[in-house]
């Protein structure tokens, strides 16, 4: 508890709820996320790829918990890992053909794709290296106990005063309705 830390972290430690072993958890979760990401793009079997993506999603949910965003972590697990990945597994089983597991795995022009990705990586590294001085050293500790209430206020509150995203929320529900209708109509055998 050195005086250099922010007031929020100090009070959290005093309340007995300070995070413990933070660097260890970060490196384990980040390493897990990146390793599973590599497994997603390199497995020949699509089911293995899907399982690796589930591990990546859970690791990223853990990283959200470390960033004091419990509601986003919960939404990630429910929607992504519990909903979207089940959908992916269903579709993999529907379109599975044995022929595809014995064919070539990567494109004919995979060097070009890899070079483009490396150029993108170089761009990111240069952006992070140049902008390193702009980031503040200590992060602000958000209160964890009212996270859901505050997000709910922003999403559902009175437009203009506190709820800045109420309209966007309604549009998102409309988007989901359109997606449901589109998916149902596209996959019906006879319309």
């Amino acid at each position: 508890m050195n005086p250099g830390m922010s007031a929020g972290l100090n009070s959290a430690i005093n309340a007995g709820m300070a995070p413990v072993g933070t660097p260890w958890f970060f490196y384990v979760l980040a390493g897990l996320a990146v390793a599973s990401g590599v497994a997603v793009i390199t497995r020949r079997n699509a089911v293995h790829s899907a399982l690796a993506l589930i591990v990546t999603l859970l690791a990223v949910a853990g990283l959200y918990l470390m960033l004091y965003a419990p509601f986003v972590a919960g939404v990630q697990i429910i929607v992504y890992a519990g909903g979207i990945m089940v959908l992916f597994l269903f579709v993999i089983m529907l379109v599975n053909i044995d022929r595809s597991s014995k064919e070539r795995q990567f494109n004919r022009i995979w060097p070009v794709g890899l070079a483009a990705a490396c150029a993108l990586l170089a761009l990111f590294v240069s952006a992070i290296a140049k902008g390193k001085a702009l980031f503040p050293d200590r992060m602000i500790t958000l209160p964890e106990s009212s996270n859901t209430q505050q997000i709910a206020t922003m999403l559902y509150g009175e437009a203009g005063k506190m709820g800045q995203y109420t309209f966007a929320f309604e549009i998102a529900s409309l988007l989901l309705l359109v997606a449901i209708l589109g998916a149902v109509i596209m996959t019906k055998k006879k319309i």
Partner: protein
Amino acid sequence: MAEITTLHYLVVAAALFVLGVIGVLTRRNVVIVLMSIELILNAVNLNLVAFSRMWGNLHGQVFAIFITVDAAAEAAVGLGILISFFRNKETINVDEIDLLKW
């Protein structure tokens, strides 16, 4: 490196993003291309939530929730397209989905 700063999370997000881009550009199986797109969206979400922590407000988290909702809708529609294409042509190779080529 005793304390984890925003930079650490940005590096992880950049790594996931590049892995997703490699997956989209080099794989032949359409389902794996769609899964790499989900990887890209997750990297963007991680970026947003890390910045939300840095600035101390919740705009980044709300944006991340909207992106998650959007990713669900897009996965459903993309997989629907894939299934209806598979019913027509019986293949899931990106190289062989070329009916619109001249």
